[in-house]
């Protein structure tokens, strides 16, 4: 795990400059640097970057033309990535973005780990007294070179549509949200950092909303061009793991050394996916970012701005019901994951599409093949008496099946803790 306290000095060479690209925020320049030990000539890693890979990455992020790259689609939602500020220890804007491809955590891994990151320290001047001494003084983010260079299957020719390259492309959108978030909310609006669950939720929501434009399947785990719920069984994306851990806290976030971090990512994707599909899509995301709040109040502010008269606790309840109703394409507004088609929204003249989701289609492998143990669909408790769940985590839903094939009047005594709300969903299967 990436927990070194040392400073890593990364010798790198600039392999691509894309300059003078016209955008809604003026001409922009993209610089792509590659760590020397990751380069095709002289590199020592298990997979190496070549010029074709660099060129392909650049084309996905910033390309001549309108409405055709990550820069256009994501800034259209959230705004510009950097600009002037009132702080003397932050770098001046120069309309350049840098991507550094290197082996994050020096793990030489082609099978997961940290795929990329943005770190706001680079937006500070490199001054130990005024700023941050280890700043690169660039608007930049970091991408794992070894995973990006991983071909599929092993030994075949590399394509940007291969699994890990596709994940990297999606990660560009993810990290770009973090980058813009730092400027627009942390620096300009809030003056303080955002709670991690919310920041990561927005990044995964960004991956989701541009997936079909990028031509990657994204966190939904359904083919990007398929607007429907997909075809059972679905193993990819964030939702198989979410289903299994759908009762954890939405807002608590573990340290990076804790493997439960993957569950936290998954639940926050599921929540963001629900919010977008019910409360306005791209405009909703914009409204969450562009306010001065840094937690659940940011979501509430966005709901208010969109004209939805609901608070955070109410959307948590509705979201819970939406989980259970996701196999229906006729759920009422505010309770939808699935309409058998795209959820569409528009912002700044750009149309965005989100595919439908049926949580019951997703399968989590609990053990290795052959004949693995599996879990399918939302985790729903059965058999245990209601109330016997120990502590109820904050901002969490717990799902319990009271019964099946019930008819007539049903009575149940529910022993709930303070602050816990009960929602009853009746399904006619």
């Amino acid at each position, binding site marked *: 795990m990436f927990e070194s306290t040392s400073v890593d000095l990364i010798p790198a060479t600039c392999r691509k400059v894309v300059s003078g690209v016209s955008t809604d925020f003026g001409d922009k320049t993209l610089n792509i640097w590659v760590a020397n030990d990751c380069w095709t000539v002289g590199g020592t890693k298990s997979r190496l970057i070549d010029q074709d890979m660099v060129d392909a990455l650049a084309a996905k992020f910033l390309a001549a033309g309108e409405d055709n790259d990550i820069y256009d689609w994501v800034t259209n939602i959230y705004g510009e990535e950097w600009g002037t500020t009132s702080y003397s*220890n932050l770098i001046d804007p120069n309309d350049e973005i840098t991507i550094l491809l290197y082996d994050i955590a020096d793990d030489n891994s082609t099978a997961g780990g940290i795929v990329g990151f943005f770190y706001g320290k680079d937006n500070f001047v490199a001054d130990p007294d005024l700023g941050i001494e280890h700043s690169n003084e660039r608007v930049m983010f970091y991408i794992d070179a070894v995973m990006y260079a991983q071909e599929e299957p092993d030994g075949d020719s590399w394509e940007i549509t291969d699994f890990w390259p596709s994940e990297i492309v999606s990660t560009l959108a993810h990290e770009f949200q973090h980058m813009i978030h730092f400027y627009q909310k942390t620096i300009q609006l809030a003056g303080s950092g955002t709670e991690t669950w919310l920041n990561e939720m927005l990044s995964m929501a960004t991956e989701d909303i541009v997936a079909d434009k990028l031509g990657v399947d994204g966190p939904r785990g359904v083919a990007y061009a398929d607007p429907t719920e997909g075809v059972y069984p679905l193993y990819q994306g964030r939702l198989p793991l979410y289903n299994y851990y759908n009762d954890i806290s939405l807002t608590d976030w573990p340290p990076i050394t804790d493997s439960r971090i993957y569950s936290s990512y998954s639940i926050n994707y599921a929540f963001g996916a629900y919010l977008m599909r019910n409360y306005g899509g791209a405009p909703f995301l914009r409204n969450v970012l562009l306010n001065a709040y840094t937690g659940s109040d940011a979501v509430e502010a966005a709901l208010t701005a969109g004209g939805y008269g609901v608070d955070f606790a109410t959307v948590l309840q509705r979201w819970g019901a939406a989980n259970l109703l996701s196999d229906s394409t006729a759920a009422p507004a505010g309770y939808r994951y699935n309409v058998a088609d795209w959820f569409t929204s528009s912002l700044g003249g750009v149309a965005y599409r989100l595919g439908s989701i049926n949580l019951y289609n997703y399968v989590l492998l609990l053990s290795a093949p052959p004949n693995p143990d599996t879990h399918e669909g939302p985790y729903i408790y059965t058999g245990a008496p209601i109330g016997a769940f120990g502590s109820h985590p904050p901002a969490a839903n717990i799902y319990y099946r009271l019964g099946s094939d019930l008819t007539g009047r049903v009575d149940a005594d529910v022993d709930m803790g303070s602050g816990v709300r009960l929602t009853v969903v009746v399904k006619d299967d």
Partner: protein
Amino acid sequence: MVFVAVAMLAPAFLGGCSSVKIAGRVAVKGSEPHTYLVLVSNGQDYKLVGPLRDEIWKSFQGQRIRVRGRIVREARGPGFPAELEVLEILGVEPPEGS
């Protein structure tokens, strides 16, 4: 060109500071892999450091607590708050507004 990639910044130690008592809500902020634990007190963030940090991270997220500690690094700017070395967890406070 040599880039600098930093996993965790070593704080400059301000020796000789007296301790303070601060109450606030525990939250995790930032984006992975550079998340940090804070105490949000009267609209100001204090990044929690020191040997009690992990216990607070594990046990008190979302809750209001009162701690005794000392400021070991001044704030650099938004997203890089002052660092509070927690010396003692004094107790859990009632939720704000209660």
